[in-house]
């Protein structure tokens, strides 16, 4: 599928987006403090499964990666490695102010401030941990944007990948860590 901004989606991708909008599998990677909001969203009061969303164990099977809170440099390396293991088309939803502008950890030497420079974010949810209502509303918006084809974070990542790679290198140096714990 040749990807460029201007050309619309071909029929095959439109059909795909129809299915992808109604059945999104969430990767089970709780990167920050917002992950505690997921259980109430999944269980009986809010029931995420009504939207056709559910948790899946591995990046290969998942569609959406939830960045639920601040991202330290070490976590960011693992998030980037998992994101690249996910299958296209994939989406990213960032929870809370820490992903938007660093939040209360803006001055820390270990956490990044603007997630958008390192990973293509499709949707931000404001709040210093958004409550399940906000999360459900966000998932609805995500589904509409997928249906309309606006959730093209994975296309942006592919298209200007050297922009992202450059930012990643500047912030965290090498993604693949070679030290005594991993050799």
């Amino acid at each position, binding site marked *: 599928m040749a990807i460029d901004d201007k050309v619309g989606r071909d029929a095959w991708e439109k059909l795909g987006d129809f299915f992808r909008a109604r059945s999104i599998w969430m990767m089970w990677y709780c990167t920050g403090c917002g992950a505690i909001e997921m259980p109430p969203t999944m269980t009986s009061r809010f029931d995420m499964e009504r939207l056709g969303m559910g948790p899946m164990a591995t990046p290969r099977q998942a569609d959406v990666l939830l960045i639920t809170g601040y991202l330290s*440099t*070490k976590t960011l*390396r693992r998030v980037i490695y998992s994101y690249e293991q996910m299958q296209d088309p994939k989406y990213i939803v960032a929870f809370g102010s820490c992903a*938007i*502008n*660093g939040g209360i950890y*803006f*001055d*820390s*030497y*270990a*956490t*990044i*401030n*603007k997630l*958008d*420079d390192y990973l293509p974010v499709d949707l931000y949810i404001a709040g210093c941990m958004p409550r399940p209502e906000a999360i459900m509303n966000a998932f609805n918006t995500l589904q509409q944007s997928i249906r309309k084809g606006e959730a093209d974070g994975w296309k942006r990542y592919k298209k200007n990948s050297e922009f992202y790679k450059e*930012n990643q290198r*500047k*912030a*965290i*140096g*090498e993604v693949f*860590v070679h*030290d*005594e714990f991993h050799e």
Partner: protein
Amino acid sequence: MTNSTSNSIENLKDLLTKHYDIKEFEEPIALQLAFNIDKESALDALAFLKSQGFGQLSLLTCIDWIESGQFQLVYILMNWDNGIHLQLRTFLDRDKPVFKTIQHIYPGVKYYERDVHEFFGVEFEGNEESYQHLFLEMWTADPPMRKDFDPVKYSDDKYSMREYTTEFPTKIGGK
């Protein structure tokens, strides 16, 4: 229970003052004793205390007194028989902070020394591993816990900030 431990703290104090010239003792809370000791006799004090029943080294940490240009190493020991915690504190010079490893006394101190080296830059001769990183991955700047390290400046130039364009409406009901 308390009178036996209180007199054991007393005879602990006499024991220590007999061996080393310790000016004064502090008792921050019950069952806890803190005292300062000079760098040279700190090592054999630790060995001596281990033989007195202080089998557990709970913590090794470092305090950065930047005004007086000194690092202060704090060893917290614990005696399981009478439950006494003991803080052994020594001062190091801030510019060239060097101390000896005590792995032969408390083997568990290996990772504490590595942690203190990573965050303060204190060298522990004899513990070659302490020169590697423990928590920080691929860290190139100088140790972050030192007071002369400015995290905000580091964070600003390493991690890009989000620019906010501030065009709020000048007056209520603006354009």
